C-alpha cells in the first residue's frame, strides 16, 4: 500500500523504535503533524522554542544512550534549532533532527520561510540530507539514525520539503543498512594494544585520563574494572564525569582549567598516561608546550582524527573504548605481571600530599550562601543518585566539582560548545526518559533566562524537575575573568533588572522558593525533593564574590594553578614555585 511522505515518516520513526519527538510545528511540517495526530506510538513533546527541542532531545540522548529526535519547521524553526545542533555536535551526541523545507520547486526562490538548512547546519553536523523524492524518505531516515548513533556519534539533519511529505510511495523500512562510504569503526590493532599494556605495567607514575567517549561507548564498567585491577589513579574530563566512580579512592577528580590540584599535577608529573575517549581539548591541557612533559601517552579514540590532533601520542589506538578496554584487559592478563608496587606506592604518597592541599575548600563559616555548599547538600540529599544538568558558568564548574557522580549518564552538560540555556530543556529530556527519577538543574540567573520559556513545557508535561538557581546577580564566570584579568572592570556582567524568580515560577504554575540564608539551604532542598510531582524552582541568593578554584589561566600549564585564597593556599603556591 502506498503511504504519503508524512505517514512514511511517522511509520519510520515507529519502526526505528522512537518513543519521543521533541518539536514545534509550522507550515512546512503540517502534513507530518497531521500524521502524528492520527497515531499514538510516537509521542510528541511540544517545546516553547526550537532550541529547547534540540536540547531536550540531547538530554534524552545523553541520559539514555539512544538518539534524540527533533522535528521543527523550515526557516526560523531550523535556525532556532541550530544552537542545539551545534551543542550536540561538539559533545558527540546522537541526534536526528528533521527540518521542514519549502516545496521542492520553490527551493532557491527565497520562498517564505526558506533557509538553506543543509548549508547552514553543515559545519555542525556529522552529516545531513535533503530528501527530494518521497521514495528516498524511509531509506534516508534509516541512514540518519545509523550515522547518528554509530562510530563517533553526532547529530544528523534531514531536511524534508513539504511536497515530499504529501507525495505517495510504497513503505519499506530497511532492517539493516550498509554504506560503502561509511565504516564507523575499524578493527582494533592488537599489536598496539599489546604495546600499551606493556608500557602501562612498566609505569612508575601512571595516570588514566578518561573522557566522554567512555560514556558514549558504555565502557564505564570495563574502565572501572581495569583501573581497579591496576590500582592506578584516574581523572575524568568535564564530559567524562561518571565514567569512573567519583567516590572511588583511585579517583582524582576532574582535570583541566578548573580541575583539582591532584588531578592536574598527576597529569603534569606522570610518566605514562592512558588517555581514553578524550580529545586533549584546550580547556583540559592548558598550554600544550607545558603539557605532561615526561609522559608516554597512549591515546585511545574511536575517531582517528582525534588522535595526533593536539598531542601526538606514542601509542595511538583507534577503536571503540569498550572494545579496546576489553582487549587491553586481556593483554594485561596475558603479560602476567604486576605493576611496580614500590613505585606506585611512592606515586600515591605524592598524590596524597597534593590531595592534602584540599583545593576545593571554601569558607564554611560564611554568613552568605556559598554556591559550593548548595551543590554539596544536593549531593548528600540525593545520595549521589540524581541526574544533574547544568548550564554554563561558575555553577557548572561547582556542580562538576562537588557532585560526586558514581555512574555514567547522570551528569548532563554542554562541555564543548558551552551553551547557556542548555540546562532546563536538557533536564526535560532527562526527566521524560526517566520518569520518577530525581532530576536537578543547577543553573545561574543569567543562563536560566536563556531558555526560561521551557518552564511552560515542564508544566504541560508535569515534569517535576528541581531547578537550583545559584543566583549571584552576576554572569559569575565572566565576572571572575574580569576580576582576574581585567583588574575588576566588570563590563556588562552584572545582571540587572532580574525577575522575581519565585513569582516567575509560580506564574508558570510551579513552586518557587527563595533561599537567602545558609541555614535554610538543606531545608529548602528537602522540601523541594519531597514534592515528587512538582517542579520546584529554588532561588538561592549566593555569595557574589565567590570564584571557582583551582584555575589554570590562559597560557599556563597544569602545574601553574591558581588556588583559592582560603587559608593554606598561599604556602602551597610558594612551595610549587
Amino acid at each position, binding site marked *: 500500500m502506498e503511504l504519503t511522505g508524512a505517514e512514511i515518516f511517522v511509520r519510520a520513526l515507529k519502526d526505528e523504535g522512537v518513543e519521543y519527538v521533541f518539536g514545534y510545528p509550522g507550515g512546512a511540517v503540517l502534513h507530518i503533524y497531521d500524521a502524528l495526530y492520527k497515531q499514538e506510538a510516537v509521542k510528541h513533546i511540544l517545546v516553547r522554542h526550537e532550541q529547547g527541542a534540540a536540547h531536550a532531545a540531547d538530554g534524552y540522548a545523553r541520559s539514555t544512550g539512544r538518539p534524540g529526535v527533533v522535528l521543527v519547521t523550515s526557516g526560523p524553526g531550523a535556525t532556532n534549532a541550530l544552537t542545539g545542533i551545534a551543542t550536540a555536535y561538539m559533545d558527540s551526541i546522537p541526534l536526528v533532527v528533521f527540518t521542514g523545507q519549502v516545496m521542492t520547486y520553490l527551493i532557491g526562490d527565497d520562498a517564505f520561510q526558506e533557509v538553506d538548512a543543509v*548549508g547552514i547546519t*553543515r559545519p555542525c553536523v556529522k552529516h545531513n540530507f*535533503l530528501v527530494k523524492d518521497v521514495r528516498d524518505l524511509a531509506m534516508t531516515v534509516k541512514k540518519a539514525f545509523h550515522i547518528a548513533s554509530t562510530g563517533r556519534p553526532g547529530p544528523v539533519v534531514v531536511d524534508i520539503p513539504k511536497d515530499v511529505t504529501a507525495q505517495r510511495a510504497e513503505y519499506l523500512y530497511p532492517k539493516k543498512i550498509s*554504506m*560503502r*562510504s561509511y565504516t564507523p569503526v575499524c578493527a582494533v590493532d592488537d599489536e598496539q594494544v599489546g604495546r600499551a599494556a606493556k608500557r602501562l605495567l612498566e609505569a612508575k607514575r601512571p595516570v588514566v585520563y578518561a573522557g566522554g567517549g567512555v560514556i558514549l561507548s558504555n565502557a564505564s564498567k570495563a574502565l572501572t574494572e581495569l583501573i581497579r585491577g591496576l590500582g592506578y589513579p584516574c581523572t575524568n574530563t568535564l564530559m567524562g564525569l561518571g565514567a569512573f566512580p567519583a567516590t572511588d579512592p583511585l579517583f582524582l577528580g576532574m582535570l583541566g582549567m578548573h580541575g583539582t590540584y591532584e588531578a592536574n599535577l598527576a597529569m603534569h608529573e606522570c610518566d605514562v598516561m592512558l588517555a581514553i575517549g578524550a580529545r586533549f581539548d584546550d580547556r583540559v591541557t592548558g598550554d600544550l608546550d607545558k603539557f605532561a612533559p615526561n609522559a608516554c601517552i597512549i591515546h585511545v579514540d574511536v575517531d*582517528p*582524527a582525534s588522535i*595526533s590532533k593536539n598531542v601526538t601520542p606514542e601509542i595511538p589506538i583507534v577503536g571503540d573504548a569498550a572494545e579496546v578496554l576489553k582487549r587491553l584487559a586481556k593483554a594485561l592478563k596475558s603479560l602476567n605481571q604486576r605493576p611496580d608496587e614500590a613505585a606506585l606506592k611512592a606515586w600515591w604518597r605524592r598524590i596524597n600530599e597534593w590531595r592534602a592541599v584540599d583545593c576545593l575548600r571554601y569558607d564554611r563559616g560564611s554568613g552568605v550562601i556559598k554556591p559550593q555548599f548548595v551543590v554539596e547538600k544536593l549531593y548528600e540529599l540525593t545520595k549521589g543518585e540524581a541526574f544533574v544538568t547544568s548550564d554554563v558558568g561558575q555553577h557548572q564548574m561547582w556542580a562538576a566539582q562537588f557532585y560526586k557522580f558514581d555512574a555514567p549518564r547522570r551528569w548532563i552538560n554542554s562541555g564543548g560548545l558551552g551553551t547557556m540555556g542548555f540546562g532546563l530543556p536538557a533536564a526535560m529530556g532527562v526527566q521524560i526518559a526517566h520518569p520518577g527519577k530525581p532530576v536537578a538543574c543547577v543553573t545561574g540567573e543569567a543562563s536560566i533566562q536563556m531558555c526560561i520559556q521551557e518552564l511552560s513545557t515542564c508544566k504541560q508535561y508535569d515534569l517535576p524537575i528541581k531547578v537550583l538557581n545559584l543566583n549571584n546577580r552576576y554572569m559569575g564566570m565572566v565576572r571572575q575573568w574580569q576580576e582576574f584579568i581585567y583588574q575588576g572592570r566588570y563590563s556588562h556582567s552584572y545582571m540587572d533588572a532580574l525577575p522575581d524568580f519565585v513569582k516567575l515560577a509560580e506564574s508558570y504554575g510551579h513552586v518557587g522558593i527563595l533561599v537567602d540564608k545558609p541555614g535554610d539551604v538543606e531545608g529548602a532542598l528537602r522540601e523541594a525533593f519531597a514534592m515528587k510531582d512538582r517542579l520546584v524552582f529554588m532561588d538561592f541568593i549566593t555569595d557574589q564574590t565567590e570564584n571557582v578554584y583551582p584555575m589554570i589561566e590562559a597560557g599556563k600549564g597544569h602545574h601553574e594553578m591558581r588556588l583559592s585564597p582560603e587559608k593554606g593556599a598561599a604556602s602551597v603556591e610558594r612551595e610549587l614555585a
Partner: protein
Amino acid sequence: MRHIISILLENEAGALSRVAGLFSARGYNIESLTVAPTDDATLSRMTLVTRGSEDVIEQIMKQLNKLIDVVQIVDLTEGAHIEREMLLVKVCVNGKEREEVARLAGIFRGRIIDVTETTYTIELTGAADKLDAFVKTLGSSIIREVVRSGAIGIARGERSLHP
C-alpha cells in the same frame, strides 16, 4: 610540502561543498581543486592540491575520510604518480613576436588553438611546474589572460583508486 590528494566521493548534491567547507572551517589551504563524474555515474573524482606540514596533511586526510560522502581517498604524493594540468593562455602578438611565440609554444609542446590578427590562444598540458615555466617564459607583458584547470592525477603502475 605540496600534496595531491585524490578523492572518490558519492556523486551527491552538496558533496563538493562538504569538502570545500571542511577546508575553510579548519583553516587548511586549497591550491587547486577539480571535480568531475567518473565512468561510474554514482561517483565523482576530485583532485585537490594543498600544502602543509606532515601533521597538517595527516589531519586533512583523516578529516576527509570522516566525511560521510567520501568513499576513498589517497595522497598521490606518497607514491609514484602522474600529474597533469591544462593551461589556456591568450597572448597579444604582433609582427615578429608571432613567430617567436609560436616557436616557444612548440618547444613546450603547446598548441595554438585560436588565432586573430593580434592574439594567439595556446593550449598546454603538463605538470604544474611546466605550465609555470611556460607562463614565465611568455612574460607578463604579452599575456592577456590565463586559465588553468587545476591538477588531476593518477598513480603509476597497478595501484588504483576504486570503490
